[in-house]
């Protein structure tokens, strides 16, 4: 483990590769069809798997009619409860990095917990044959009379939220009850977020292949190390016998963080048949079996004085979870630290429903909780007849009161000022419906954006090669965020070797273990490891160069720097590649493992932002649209402004989905009937408003040597509240349940 110095007062280095708009180094592969996503391969002798799913939500599978399916052309085998391999469950432990999406093994018992649960797995010689045979499998069930598929049916809409309290989720500072009771101004409101599905473009896919006792699985995964560890546990195999490869991922947004059961079925079938098996879930199955952002109900109570000072905040959350896998979305947790309030209480309840396991979805928990809190603050501002931005300013959190720690770096005030100014917030008329433009009524709304800044342990390896190129390898993934490119920028920064000469390898569990691509932590985690690995390799290069007869013989090691791919000491220098060639060495490598230190106990780390939204409501044709979004983000140093801005804009687009369109809808039998991309509405190009993002670029050196925090989640936060607040400003209607559909707007 290498040590790093972290110093908030350090001088900004002059950087050459970091902070530059750099087109993606994997761009040409993606633009020519050359990038290999999981299913983009046909292995010799390959077969095709096709899952069969339950058509009831709760009960028992009492029998399967398989004869017709088995007699279909091309069928090789059908796997199910009675013939599946005996395996062990993964311990499903996040800290041990073997967490899975659904801990239950495929076909483990005959109990049906949710509609869409796997009941059989057909394998055939072609995709067409597997699909055709899957439709001939007949299942017999004993259906439970009682099933629960919607949390809202338990809710009276007032007072306490339904469900069981999660003791570990309850946190508080001060005495929120007493402070609320004594407050001059009070607000007590309920909010909800509909279930959202990730709806990733690339369906989950596995291609499993055994060579003797060694398993290689190509998977669309945000965490090859987690999946490798889980499979090792499940199959009782040493880690080195399992390789999970995920060179390119057609996005994940959380749905591919943790392995789902299709991968286990695919691996078992491949072992049993002695042939590779490719499984690609259907778009419909994606909505049945690969997680979602759970529906949440929330209650916010705020007590304030007449000046807008927050005296008390209660935020209670409640989310759906599944008998097939517990997921606590902790929607209220971030409210403990968003604003200066000395009396705060946050709780979360869970309700088990007959759906597949929920999982993390982009800004999990916080995106939902932020919606409720930031909408409640807008309502409070209206009650106080105060500008909503001014209300927030008056309650800026100078420190993180929830843990009594200073912020590592917090430029939220600058975000508010910058975004408000660019948006033209001063032109806002607070009277609903007062701003008109032709047939349209204009509404302005805003919200604060935020997401925790995290860092994990990470390994990385670099290798200087005798052809002048540099290898960088890390067992993390690039899910489209640009990790390949920023890893190359980092190595280039630390060696002077041009980005074009750097060969980055990611998405392979056999590489030094790297982090999940999730939680906005990959950048802050991976870059220091790459930098440390460079230092390790450079030390070896120095030994070679200063050896007897070497080009830098007798030079003090400390006097040697690496610049432009050369080792330089005073007026002597040698190109690294030439040094290797002279010594007939093909490659000199260095490996490092880095980890966060004690700074977590000394500072609180968060990213901040402000988002302002203009909506337009045309009452003549009942059309609501978002016309303009302005956001300013404080996420530490920006490594690649080109990809960073894109990612924030993408988060905003998904936030618009949450605000305007996205809702997974279930029939009374627990079937998500809008399980496709025509009926589950996501934003398309024609829905796009004008989007203007600014990234502040203030390095946070307490988190890592580059001062980078992370960008994946924060863009999405705040957007739903800002839209809802703007809708109120336009229409005078307060929509507290996302999405703001036309139906809700017309009936409000």
């Amino acid at each position, binding site marked *: 483990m290498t040590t790093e110095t972290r110093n908030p007062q350090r001088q900004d280095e002059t950087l050459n590769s970091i902070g530059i708009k750099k087109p993606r180094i994997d*761009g040409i592969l993606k*633009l020519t*069809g050359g990038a290999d996503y999981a299913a983009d391969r046909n292995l010799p002798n390959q077969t095709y798997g096709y899952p069969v799913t339950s058509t009831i939500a709760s009960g028992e599978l009492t029998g399967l009619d398989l*004869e017709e399916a088995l007699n279909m052309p091309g069928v090789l085998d059908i796997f199910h409860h009675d013939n599946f391999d005996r395996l062990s469950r993964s311990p499903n432990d996040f800290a041990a990095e073997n967490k899975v999406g659904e801990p239950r093994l495929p076909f483990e018992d005959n109990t049906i917990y949710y509609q869409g649960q796997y009941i059989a797995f057909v394998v055939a010689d072609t995709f067409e044959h597997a699909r055709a045979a899957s439709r001939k499998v007949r299942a017999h069930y004993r259906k439970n009379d009682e099933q629960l598929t919607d949390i809202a049916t338990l809710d009276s809409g007032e007072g306490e939220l339904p469900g069981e309290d999660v003791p570990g989720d309850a946190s508080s500072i001060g005495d929120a009850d007493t402070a609320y009771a004594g407050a001059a101004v009070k607000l007590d409101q309920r909010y909800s977020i509909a279930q959202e599905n990730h709806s990733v473009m690339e369906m989950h896919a596995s291609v499993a292949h055994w060579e003797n006792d060694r398993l290689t699985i190509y998977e669309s995964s945000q965490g090859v190390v987690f999946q490798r560890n889980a499979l090792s546990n499940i199959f009782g195999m040493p880690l080195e016998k399992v390789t999970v490869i995920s060179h390119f991922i057609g*996005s994940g947004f959380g749905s591919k963080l943790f392995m789902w059961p299709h991968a286990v079925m695919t691996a078992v079938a491949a072992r049993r048949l002695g042939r590779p098996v490719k499984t*690609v879930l259907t778009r419909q199955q994606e909505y049945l079996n690969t997680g979602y952002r759970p529906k949440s109900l929330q209650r916010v109570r705020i007590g304030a004085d007449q000046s807008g000072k927050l005296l008390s905040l209660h935020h209670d959350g409640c989310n759906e979870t599944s008998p097939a896998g517990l997921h606590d979305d902790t929607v209220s947790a971030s409210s403990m630290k968003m604003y200066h309030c000395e009396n705060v209480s946050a709780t979360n309840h869970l309700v088990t429903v007959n759906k597949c396991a929920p999982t993390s979805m982009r800004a999990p928990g916080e995106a939902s909780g932020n919606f409720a809190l930031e909408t409640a603050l807008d309502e409070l501002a209206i009650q106080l007849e105060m500008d909503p931005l001014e209300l927030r300013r008056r309650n800026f959190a100078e420190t993180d009161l929830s843990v009594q720690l200073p912020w590592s770096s917090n430029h939220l005030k600058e975000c508010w000022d910058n975004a408000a100014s660019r948006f033209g917030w001063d032109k806002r008329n607070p009277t609903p419906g007062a701003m008109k433009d032709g047939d349209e009524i204009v509404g302005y709304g805003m919200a604060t954006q935020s997401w925790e800044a995290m860092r994990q342990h990470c390994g990385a390896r670099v290798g200087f090669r005798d052809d002048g190129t540099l290898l960088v390898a890390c067992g993390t993934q690039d899910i489209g965020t640009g990790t390949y490119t920023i890893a190359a920028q980092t190595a280039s920064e630390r060696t002077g070797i041009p980005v074009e000469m750097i060969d980055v390898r990611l998405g392979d569990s056999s590489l030094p273990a790297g982090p999940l691509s999730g939680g906005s932590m990959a950048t802050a985690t991976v870059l220091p490891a790459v930098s440390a690995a460079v230092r390790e390799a450079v030390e070896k290069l120095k030994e070679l160069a200063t050896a007897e007869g070497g080009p830098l013989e007798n030079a003090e090691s400390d006097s040697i720097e690496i610049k432009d791919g050369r080792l330089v000491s005073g007026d002597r220098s040698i190109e690294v590649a030439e040094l290797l060639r002279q010594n007939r060495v093909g490659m000199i490598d260095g490996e490092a493992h880095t980890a966060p230190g004690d700074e977590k106990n000394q500072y609180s780390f968060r990213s901040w932002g402000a988002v302002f939204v203009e909506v337009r409501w045309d009452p003549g044709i009942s059309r609501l649209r978002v016309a303009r979004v302005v956001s300013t983000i404080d996420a530490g140093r920006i490594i690649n402004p080109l990809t960073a801005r894109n990612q924030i804009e993408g988060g905003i687009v998904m936030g618009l989905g949450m605000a305007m369109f996205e809702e997974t809808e279930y029939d009374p039998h627990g079937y998500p009937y809008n399980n496709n*991309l025509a009926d589950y509405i996501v934003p398309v190009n024609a829905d796009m408003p004008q989007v203007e993002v600014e990234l502040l670029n203030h390095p946070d050196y307490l988190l890592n040597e580059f001062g980078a925090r992370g960008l994946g989640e924060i863009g999405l936060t705040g957007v739903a509240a800002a839209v809802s607040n703007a809708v109120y400003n336009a229409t005078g209607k307060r929509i507290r349940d996302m999405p703001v559909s036309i139906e809700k707007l017309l009936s409000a």
Partner: protein
Amino acid sequence: MAPVIRHSTGVGFCTPGAQADIAERPSAVSGKTSETRRITLTVNGQQHDLQVTPNAILLDVLREQLNLFGTKKGCDHGQCGACTVHVNGQSVNSCLLLACMQEGVDIVTIEGLAESAGFEQGHHPVQEAFLEHDAYQCGYCTAGQMMTASAVINDDTIDGDEVSLREALSGNICRCGAYKNILDAVQSARGKMRGGQ
């Protein structure tokens, strides 16, 4: 309670010790083969003689038989645009076409886009613009976006203003939300390909 397996053939319900013969099993459990037909497809200027079942979809044939993986499956229902290819220069969803009905037409996939437009060396202007404008993130919808974009640019009925282009590109979902950059890239490529038109 274990399920009752009705009318089971018993084949495939192996205990671990009974698996030894699986590798030698010639093909399917049933031994049945399905009716196939012989077709010739012209893809990226090359002719391919293929055996396909009548229900084989062009998208699956491109990927699973011709190893042309640049064309992606995103929904299999004509809802997302990820599988967009050109058939006789028109952009179409390859997931909605039966392979056996595509004889005698020119099919172009992302692998052949540049060459089909006369850029035998290097890349199509749309590809270059997508790189420069970072008009993608994960890259999965990107081939479809570019196949649509290149057809849209060549379509004289679609104007080059923002509203017209956004509408014309809306059959292609990008869940990463790179729409702003996609529009910028398409406008840039359109300017280069059509000049002031």
